[in-house]
C-alpha cells in the first residue's frame, strides 16, 4: 500500500499543533476570565511561559512509579489524539484516552500524601461522571452514522445530534477543570488534588497531557460540523469550539464548586437523559416518523 506522504505530514502536524492551539486557547481563556473580573490578566502566551518554566525546574520525585504514570498519561493521550486526527475509530480513541486518565490517577495514588489521595479519589469520581456520557455520545454517533470511523463521518452531525452536543458540554467542563466541576483539582480546598505531588518537569508533563486530553474532547466537538467546502468546514468547526469554550467560561465565572454527589447526580441524570432523548429522535427519524 502506497503511503500518502502529504496526508501523513498533515496529520502529524495536526497532532503537534493541536496542543499548541489548546495552550493558546487556555491563554485566551485566562485573559477573558480576567476581563470578566475587571482585571487585565496575563499575556495570551502565558500557558507556554508556565510550561517552559516547569520544564526548566529541577526534578523532584516521590517515587519512580509517579514518573512512569506521568509519561503513560502523556503518551496515551497523545496516541488517542493521533488516532482521532488520522481518522481512526472513535471508540478506540475513547478507550485509549480513558486509559490515560486512569494512568494519571494511579500516578497520583502512588505518592503517600493525603491531598494526592483525596484528589485522585475525586478524579476517579469525575471519570465515573463523564465517561458514561462521552461513551453514549460516541455510541449515538455510531448508531446515527452507521460507523465509528472518523474519516468516514462526511456529514454534519449537528442537525441530528444537537442534544448530544449539549450533553458533551458536561464532559468539556470536567476536562477543563472548571467550576462547577473542578472537584478534583479544587484549589483552596484540597490544594490541587492529583497534581499536588508532581513538581517541576513532571508537573509540566501532566499539564501537557491535559492539553492533549482537552484537544481530544474539542476534536469530538469539531466532528459536529462538516461541509463540502474546506473553508466553510473549518469556519464551522472553529465556531462550535469557540461557542462551547465561551459557554464554559461564563459557567466558570458565574458558578461556585458543587459537591461530588451533585456532580454525579447531575451529569449522569442530565447527560444520559439528553443522549437517550436524542437516540429516540434518531430512531424515530430512521423509522420515517418525521
Amino acid at each position, binding site marked *: 500500500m502506497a503511503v500518502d506522504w502529504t496526508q501523513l505530514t498533515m496529520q502529524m502536524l495536526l497532532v503537534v499543533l493541536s496542543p499548541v492551539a489548546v495552550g493558546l486557547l487556555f491563554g485566551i481563556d*485566562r485573559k477573558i476570565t*480576567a476581563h470578566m*473580573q*475587571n*482585571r*487585565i*490578566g*496575563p*499575556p495570551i502566551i*502565558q500557558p*507556554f*511561559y*508556565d*510550561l*517552559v*518554566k516547569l*520544564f*526548566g*525546574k*529541577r*526534578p*523532584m520525585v516521590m517515587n519512580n512509579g509517579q514518573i512512569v504514570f506521568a509519561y503513560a498519561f502523556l503518551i496515551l493521550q497523545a496516541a488517542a489524539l493521533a488516532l482521532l486526527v488520522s481518522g481512526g475509530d472513535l471508540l478506540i480513541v475513547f478507550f485509549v484516552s480513558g486509559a490515560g486518565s486512569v494512568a494519571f490517577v494511579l500516578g497520583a495514588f502512588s505518592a503517600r500524601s493525603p491531598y494526592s489521595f483525596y484528589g485522585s479519589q475525586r478524579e476517579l469520581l469525575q471519570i465515573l461522571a463523564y465517561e458514561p456520557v462521552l461513551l453514549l455520545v460516541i455510541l449515538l454517533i455510531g448508531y446515527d452514522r452507521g460507523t465509528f470511523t472518523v474519516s468516514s463521518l462526511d456529514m454534519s452531525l449537528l442537525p441530528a445530534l444537537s442534544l448530544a452536543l449539549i450533553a458533551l458540554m458536561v464532559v468539556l467542563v470536567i476536562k477543563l477543570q472548571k467550576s462547577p466541576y473542578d472537584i478534583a483539582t479544587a*484549589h*483552596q480546598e484540597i*490544594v*490541587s488534588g492529583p*497534581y*499536588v*505531588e*508532581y*513538581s*517541576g518537569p513532571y*508537573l509540566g508533563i501532566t499539564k501537557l497531557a491535559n492539553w492533549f486530553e482537552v484537544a481530544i474532547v474539542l476534536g469530538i466537538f469539531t466532528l459536529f460540523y462538516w461541509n463540502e467546502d474546506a473553508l466553510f468546514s473549518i469556519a464551522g468547526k472553529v465556531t462550535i469550539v469557540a461557542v462551547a469554550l465561551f459557554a464554559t467560561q461564563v459557567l466558570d465565572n458565574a458558578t461556585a464548586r458543587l459537591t461530588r454527589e451533585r456532580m454525579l447526580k447531575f451529569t449522569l441524570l442530565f447527560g444520559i437523559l439528553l443522549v437517550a432523548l436524542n437516540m429516540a429522535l434518531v430512531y424515530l427519524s430512521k423509522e420515517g416518523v418525521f
Partner: protein
Amino acid sequence: MRATDRSRVKSPWILHFDTGSCNGCDIETWALLTPRYDIERFGMLNKANPKHADILLVTGPVSMKVAPRLKNLYDQMPEPRLVIAVGNCACTGAPFEECYNVHGGVGKIIPVDVFIPGCAARPEAIIDGVVLGLKLWKRRAFSPNASSVSAPAGGVEVKG
C-alpha cells in the same frame, strides 16, 4: 536570553506562608490578587503548594513552633527558588525580636533573597520586591543539574 530564563521571569508562582504574623502583611499580600493590583498580569499565581511554587513569600516573625515547618516548606520547593521576607517582622523580628518564643527574622532559618520592610508592607512595595527578586534571578545562572544555588549573603533590601 534563553527561553527557560525568560519563562522563569514571566511565570513566578507564589507560596505565601504566615510564620506568626499579625495578619497585616497577609492582608496586603492578598490584596495583590484583587483587580486593583492584579499580579496575574505578570504571570504570578498563588499556588498554596511548595512543590509548584517558585517564590516563598514569608510574613511575620518566625516563632519557635513554626520554624521547622518553614524549613520543611523551603526544602520542598524545587530550585530555582526565591525567598522574600515581607514586612518588618519577617525581616528582623521587629518588636518580637527578643521574645522567648520567637527566633527573629526569616533569615535566621532559611536564606532570604529580598527583604521588604514596612508595617505593614504596602502592596506596591511587595510587587517591587518580587520584581527585584526576578532581576536577581536573571543575574544568577541556574542549571537544573547544578548542586546548589546560594542566595547572596544578607540579601537585598527594597527601599520602602
